[in-house]
């Protein structure tokens, strides 16, 4: 199965190049090739859940160790990366399928599909690689294509949002690069597993704390945690809706939160101060995001602020796990916290992706994003309305839906770990979220129509409806992850990767127990 790993990067890249070359001859090639490749990638991604050994290592270029030191670049597939790959490609498939209908309103389809493929390739590269500098490069591919996709409409608002995103993203990239340079200066290597070993030998010093702060700032900017969130609402609300779904659903996770988790658990030695910093950033994002979201009347902007808040839950869960591990607390509670964080990350990809697709369908049919101008859509667009209901219940944590279980895990872990304030905040934020989404429901979907032209809006086309239905079913279906049978296949390997911090290095450096 190891031999299949490079395909996860090769396929989307070759898809992008093929679309760029042949779109002159065959106009429709982008709309056919992209969903097809994404479907293959999704199947590949899910195939890796059933891998033979826990960790698969692929030496690119066949470069084995030299004197016990890795010299080439490795693909590393473990529980966490395979979880990320599955989310990225599943969302990529649904969003690209949705795009086929949606993007007809725009010109330049070939650029759209090529950039879409490049973005997926970049994210797959980030989550698969075992090399720090390689991670930086693929991160750049993902974010540069997202800069262009945010500006895809080339109206005033889109251009400004993209410019702001580019400036902040550029600074973030350079801060990350400074961190990588300092790490290279200290350790002389770029392989994450090898760095972990060297740092453990060297012990704690001031440099590492400085680098950790730099990396939190850099990846925090990419993940839009609260002091660094300024670009997200503009960028995510200006992009075309399937792209918003990709950006909120997976991009900020793959290039932001995943990188933080991977580097801080598996590369650095856990320290109490840094873990506490991450937890506090998560809690502040969780509260701040929802407070900023309450006053919004733009549908997609409201959803964008909720992304900040929900990512706060993820970082809070993972951060609490880090704190508990670093002070040597109960391992079970740490497992619970981290599992809650990861579970919420998966759930957030599904329901936030669905919400953005709903917003896209509404915008596609009615031409507006302003909630005050809508009303009575549930009669005209029953499918959109029903799927929206499912997603909004999931994001607010109403019992049969998936959001409830992940939030419950985080809250239980917070109580057991002694973070009572965090537990209370999580509950309160959940209630405010519910209120905020009921507002959307009240203004957009029920009541009388406030549209200026009183014509009937039909349901969104089939190509847009099917992804929404699939995601709505997933909103319910992912609740099954709480059952031990499914949890052991999908979630537990990822949690184990993070909990056993130093086990990550062993298969890569050939130190098998």
């Amino acid at each position, binding site marked *: 199965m190891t031999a299949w790993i490079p395909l996860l990067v090769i396929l989307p890249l070759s898809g992008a190049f093929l679309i760029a070359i042949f779109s002159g001859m065959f106009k429709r090639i982008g709309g056919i090739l992209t969903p097809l490749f994404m479907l293959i990638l999704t199947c590949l991604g899910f195939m890796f859940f059933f891998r033979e050994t826990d960790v698969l290592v692929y030496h690119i270029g066949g470069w084995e160790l030299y004197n016990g030191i890795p010299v080439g670049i490795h693909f590393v597939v473990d529980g966490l990366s395979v979880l990320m790959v599955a989310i990225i490609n599943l969302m990529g498939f649904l969003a690209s399928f949705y795009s086929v209908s949606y993007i007809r309103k725009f010109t330049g389809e070939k650029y759209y599909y090529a950039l879409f493929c490049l973005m997926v390739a970049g994210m797959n590269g980030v989550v698969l690689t075992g090399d720090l500098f390689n991670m930086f490069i693929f991160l750049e*591919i993902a974010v540069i294509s997202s800069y262009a996709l945010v500006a895809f409409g080339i109206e005033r608002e889109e251009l400004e949002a993209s410019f702001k995103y580019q400036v902040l993203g550029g600074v973030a990239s350079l801060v990350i690069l400074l961190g990588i340079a300092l790490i290279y200066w200290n350790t002389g290597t770029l392989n994450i597993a090898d760095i972990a070993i060297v740092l453990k030998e060297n012990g704690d010093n001031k440099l590492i704390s*400085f680098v950790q702060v730099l990396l939190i700032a850099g990846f925090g900017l990419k993940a839009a945690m609260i002091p660094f969130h300024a670009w997200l609402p503009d960028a995510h609300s200006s992009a075309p809706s399937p792209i918003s779904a990709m950006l909120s659903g997976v991009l900020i996770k793959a290039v932001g939160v995943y990188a933080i988790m991977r580097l801080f658990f598996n590369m650095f030695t856990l320290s109490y101060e840094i873990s506490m910093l991450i937890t506090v950033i998560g809690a502040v994002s969780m509260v701040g995001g929802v407070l900023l979201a309450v006053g919004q009347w733009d549908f997609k902007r409201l959803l964008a602020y909720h992304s900040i808040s929900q990512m706060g839950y993820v970082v809070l869960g993972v951060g609490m796990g880090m704190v508990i591990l670093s002070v040597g607390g109960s391992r079970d509670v740490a497992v619970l916290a981290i599992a809650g964080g990861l579970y919420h990350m998966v759930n957030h990809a599904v329901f936030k992706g669905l919400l953005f697709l709903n917003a896209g369908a509404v915008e596609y049919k009615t031409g507006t994003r302003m909630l005050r101008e809508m009303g009575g859509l549930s009669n005209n667009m029953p499918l959109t309305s029903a799927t929206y209901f499912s997603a909004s219940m999931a994001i607010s944590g109403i019992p049969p839906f998936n959001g409830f279980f992940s939030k419950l895990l985080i809250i239980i872990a917070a109580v057991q770990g002694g973070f009572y304030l965090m537990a209370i905040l999580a509950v309160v934020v959940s209630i405010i979220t519910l209120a905020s989404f009921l507002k959307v429901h009240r203004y957009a979907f029920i009541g009388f129509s406030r549209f200026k032209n009183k014509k009937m809006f039909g349901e969104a086309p089939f190509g847009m409806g099917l992804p929404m239905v699939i995601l709505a079913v997933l909103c319910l279906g992912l609740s099954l992850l709480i059952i031990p049978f499914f949890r052991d296949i999908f979630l537990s390997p990822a949690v184990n990767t993070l909990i056993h911090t130093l086990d990550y290095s062993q298969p890569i450096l050939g130190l098998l127990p």
Partner: protein
Amino acid sequence: MEVLIAIIIVLMIAGSIYTLHSRDLLSAVISYGITGFGLVICFLLLQAPDLAIAQILVEIITLIIMISVIRISTREDVTERSTIHIKGVRYINMRTAAYIVTGAVFMIALLYFFMDATVLLDPFGVHQVRMSAAYMEVGAAITGSANLVAGVLFDFRAYDTLGEATILITAVIGILTVLRLKGRR
């Protein structure tokens, strides 16, 4: 050697400060060239000829594109509303003063932390190799490439180079996207 490079970096800093403060955009871009060409000389002095060639050419092409962008405009920098005039005397307004103080404190703090953090690392002219030991010892023999940088770029880390080329392509497609004439049908 160390003194020479220090002088060049000081010149680069001066050039970049002038870049950021000049009133005319064209002279800003040209003094930005000082920074870039200073960097090229540093690369040559620090035994990186590959980079010197690449950097000087990239510098020129960037300047061409920048000047072509600036030529459509009036070339004047926007006015900074940093001062107010009361009875002929210029005062810096309070908000700007607050910004300057916070900014200065922030910068000095960053510099202090950087110095504090890196004081124990290898000084200039000493470098402990770990990953690149293999590149230097056996790289030429295994890859057959006399230029070790090419060996690293295209053999040991060819996957990185694929990513690098892809970034360039991504930017090109992005630029073609942004510079379309009409966005929506």
